[in-house]
């Protein structure tokens, strides 16, 4: 029996299990205590002091996000002393904050801004010295502006705990404290992988992606350019949230309509190239199994994961699938197959991808990602950037009709859609691999063992007489755990799916940012993933190899999976990197 504790919060009697914090106990009584630095499970820091409450008998105010309840405790969350204190805390933060709200990337979504409004703060009350920090724009994917940092350390926690990358931390002390890299290096000089989880947890505009909207708008207005766009699976699960829709709304139809109205000549579905990836990777895997190739084989569609393994486990690069990611395959076939079909020079084609991801901005600049001789992808916009473009163009998103993607890259199976959720690539691959190895379509294509947001998922499937052992991990801390197991010889997986972001791409570094209160009280990745699995259940076409458009591209252009042509266009190489 769990020990229960009785206490009073604002004179309301509350009973909760022992070990519960005052913050959580208050929620059960319908009381919301504001927080800034608190992120459940990964940043129980109690540092910002916004969540302070009065506890009868305590010497000073206490941080409710970390203070455990006790029998008979009497808590007040909204006395004048408490609200005055919170106001002062916010005003002090504001006095050391570059107040650029009107043009800031997080205007209207900044947590400091929201609280300042709630507490009617005077942003000039404590005017004084500030330190002027230069911006770190050294990476192609994110910008760090320490002048807006409130030192909540949520980014540090995400980098260390979610991702075990740990390249940022607090430097110097006291008023000079700032988040940075070891020895004050720039982000480009440390093994940052570009996953963007730090951006997702940042409450202010201190972190945001390097925007490419202007480049895309310029291309759209350049009459010499043929501009096409491809959307990742997760974007349609997420984009709606930027327009006030519930978390996990599937807005595929409106998304296509909006893109068309923005002026893209070809509105394509990266789910199609996800199907293509399954073909290439599925056959690659079968080849390794049958011909004694390098096992375990590890998926390669997550560029932050690729950078992670290049820095940290370079001796295992041969285990990676040589397939490009769906984004890169999309760009590759656009500028080869599609350009040929249209009869235009690939240099005049401008390919844009919309991704839930920030690392894609790094991936497009990698070596061996130019099948046509020109970069496969020209601009990789995040879901957030697309939302901005749509708003700026005056498109009333919520009122758009549902439209369909263009051909030839508009038809996709729901296996391709699964790529957005952790376990989705594995399940999509299994649907095809099982069919090929057994020579017949499997009865059950719901491989539920690899679904869900558990840290590491394992399963064994009997396929054509072989016990195929698979593992799925999302979040790089879990990826690291799997790599350590491989290193120590503890496991004998055949096929491993790794997604950098905890929960999969639906929780990618480019997805709509949810404030801490939402993150702490809802399992956002699970809700978004559920939307994907719901769409999969209802779709008629559920397997990549049954996609008629896929069959056609092989017939017309690629020949067979893993053919020489396929390797030229759709496969890539990796390179070991030093950590520092």
């Amino acid at each position: 029996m769990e020990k229960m504790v009785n206490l009073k919060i604002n004179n309301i009697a509350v009973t909760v299990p022992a070990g519960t914090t005052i913050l959580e106990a208050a929620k059960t009584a319908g009381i919301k205590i504001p927080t800034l630095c608190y992120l459940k499970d990964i940043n129980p820091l109690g540092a910002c002091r916004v969540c302070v409450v009065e506890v009868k008998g305590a010497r000073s105010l206490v941080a409710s996000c970390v203070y455990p309840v006790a029998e008979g405790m009497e808590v007040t969350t909204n006395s004048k002393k408490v609200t005055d204190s919170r106001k002062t805390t916010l005003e002090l933060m504001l006095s050391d904050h570059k107040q650029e709200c009107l043009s800031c990337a997080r205007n209207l979504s900044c947590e400091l801004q929201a609280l300042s409004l709630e507490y009617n703060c005077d942003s000039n009350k404590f005017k004084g010295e500030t330190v002027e920090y230069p911006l770190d724009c050294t990476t192609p994917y994110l910008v760090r502006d320490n002048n807006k940092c409130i030192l909540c350390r949520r980014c540090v926690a995400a980098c260390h705990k979610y991702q075990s990358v740990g390249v940022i931390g607090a430097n110097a002390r006291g008023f000079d404290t700032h988040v940075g890299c070891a020895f004050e290096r720039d982000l480009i000089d440390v093994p940052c992988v570009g996953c963007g989880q730090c951006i997702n947890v940042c409450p202010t505009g201190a972190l945001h992606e390097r925007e490419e909207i202007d480049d895309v708008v310029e291309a759209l207005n350049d009459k010499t350019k043929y501009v096409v766009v491809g959307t990742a699976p997760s974007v349609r699960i997420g984009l709606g949230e930027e327009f006030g829709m519930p978390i996990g709304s599937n807005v595929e139809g409106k998304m296509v309509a909006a893109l068309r109205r923005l002026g893209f000549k070809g509105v394509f579905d990266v789910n199609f190239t996800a199907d293509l990836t399954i073909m290439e990777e599925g056959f690659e895997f079968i080849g390794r199994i049958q011909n004694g190739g390098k096992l375990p084989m590890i998926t390669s569609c997550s560029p932050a994961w690729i950078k992670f393994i290049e820095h940290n486990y370079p001796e295992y690069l041969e285990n990676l699938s040589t397939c490009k990611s769906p984004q890169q395959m999309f760009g590759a076939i656009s500028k080869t197959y599609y350009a040929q079909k249209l009869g235009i020079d690939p240099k005049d084609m401008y390919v844009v991808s919309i991704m839930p991801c920030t690392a894609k901005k790094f991936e497009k600049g990698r070596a061996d990602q130019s099948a046509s001789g020109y970069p496969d992808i020209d601009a990789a916009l995040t879901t957030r950037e697309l939302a901005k473009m749509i708003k700026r163009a005056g498109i009333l998103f919520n009122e758009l009709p549902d439209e369909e993607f263009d051909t030839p890259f508009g038809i996709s199976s729901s296996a391709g859609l699964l790529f957005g959720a952790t376990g989705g690539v594995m399940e999509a691959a299994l649907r095809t691999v099982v069919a090929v190895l057994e020579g017949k379509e499997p009865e059950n294509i719901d491989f539920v063992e690899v679904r869900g947001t558990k840290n590491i998922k394992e399963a064994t499937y009997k396929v054509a007489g072989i016990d195929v052992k698979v593992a799925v991990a999302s979040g790089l801390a879990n990826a690291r755990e799997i790599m350590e197991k491989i290193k120590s010889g503890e496991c004998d997986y055949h096929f491993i799916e790794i997604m950098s972001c905890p929960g999969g791409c639906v929780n990618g570094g480019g997805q709509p940012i949810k404030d801490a209160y939402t993150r702490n009280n809802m399992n956002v990745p699970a809700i978004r993933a559920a939307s994907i699995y719901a769409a999969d259940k209802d779709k008629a076409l559920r397997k990549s190899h049954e996609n008629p458009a896929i069959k056609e591209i092989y017939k017309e252009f690629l020949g067979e999976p893993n053919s020489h042509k396929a390797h030229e266009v759709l496969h890539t190489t990796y390179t070991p990197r030093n950590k520092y």
Partner: protein
Amino acid sequence: MFRSHILVCGGTGCHSNDSAAIREKFEAALKARKLDKDVQVVTTGCFGLCAAGPVVVVYPEGAFYSGMTVDDVETVVDEHIVKGRLVERLLYKEKASHAAIKALSDTNFIKKQTRVVLRNCGVINPENIDEYIAYDGYQALIKVLTEMQPQEVVDIVKKSGLRGRGGGGFPTGLKWQFTKDAPGDVKYVCVNADEGDPGAFMDRSVLEGDPHALLEAMVIAGFAIGAHQGYIYVRAEYPIAVQRCKIAMEQAKEYGLLGKNILGTGFDFDIEIRLGAGAFVCGEETALMTSIEGNRGEPRNRPPFPAVKGLFGKPTLLNNVETYVNIPQIILKGPQWFTSMGTEKSKGTKVFALGGKINNTGLVEIPMGTTLREVIEDIGGGIPNGKKFKAAQTGGPSGGCIPASEYDIPIDYDNLISIGSMMGSGGMIVMDEDNCMVDIARFFLDFTVDESCGKCTPCRVGTKRLLEMLTRVIEGKAELEDLDKMEELCYYIKNNALCGLGQTAPNPVLSTMRYFRDEYEAHIKEKRCPAGVCKALLSYFITEACKGCTVCAKKCPVGAITGVVKGQHVIDQSKCIKCGVCMDNCKFAAIIKK
């Protein structure tokens, strides 16, 4: 058998005034006269009367020589050792009476003290375990390991009424009980030897002068709470203390008093030294533990308390050096002996580092309840140069002032808190009429702002903004309502900061505002510093007493003084940087500041 002992003080102050060279000279001089077998030269820890240093005491007479130099050594050897005649001119003279004192024990400085923690400092050679043992060293440990149960030890500590000497004043016995009761097989004993308060050197003197007392206490503590590993966290700026501890640990291990199977009783206890890295905040208990774990030294929220979840997540006992060093004697002499000293709620003694405007600067140990008057006048020898006492600051950057109106306050934990100050770790800085209390507040706040770890908003930003407000007062740029804003900010920081550093940082400001508000108001309303300290509010003037010698004009580093030979010189206020060099060099007292 030695017929004479020459004790040379190796404490902080004397050491930095060449006492090591003095010792070497003694050894050489005795050897040259073939007296090295008859006369022993011993380096001891701090005697305490640092103002009289370098200190040399010669036994059996106990002759107290003060202000020794290397050149005096031969004289002492020839006159005192060989001929048996005291060297009068070197004997310590009580500043008040100017009468030469023969023996250290005759000084008021020593007479009024009760040296419990410091009993061996200045008496034994800290690098010789046999001398420690000769003075009842390790007897308490033997008694504990062979005759007592762990709970008995905790009960004795509780009965003694000992309270944390690091400044918090938490009942030590209670802390030991909590840690003993915490579930778990792995526990730790930790010593806070970070001693970060500016001007404090109590723990340093104990570590350098009597390290075995700490080691003995740690083993006893381990036995009492069920721990087998101890850590001494000592600031890196104390290399001699570290060295003495290491030597003591090796010697104790050699004698089976530390390490595995201590004295054959089957009890294991080992000690490791961990160095700080220049952060005052690492004297806060949770930051200290985080630092030992290899992390950035930042405090943690409590609960959970270290007694339940401390170092490496295990139950940990953390006490200050001075707290521990009381333990062996409490065991040997019994808790009643300890409670016979002190006041009702503050038992025993306290070591203070006396500094500032006082004749006898140095280390003193007094029973709790001694009044401030007794400390300053009887032991401290009063204020030099006939100046008037203004205030005494205790508790360092976390403490407050005791004004003249509280001169007869019996010093103990609760009394000091009731007047807005605190005991702190033992630093006591005496101030006279020439100190500006606003400037004093700024000095301490400047320190805390520099040492803030930066984790929580109230301390990181709040103290910084408070310092900016205080600086505006000092520069004559403040308004009267700024005082109310400052006070409000002070209480906010006290109520909201995460750890003791932030929670107590406003104390010097609040305390000086409480007792010296008139000084604050003078800075604001009249743009005047009554004590004549705050440079921004002072100007230097040359009076008509000027003889035109031109020395000041030549010395002025910025060429702010003009005048012809034998003519009245004038200071250009717009160029003057108020360094005071002109005034220091004027032979005719013609330059004043106001």
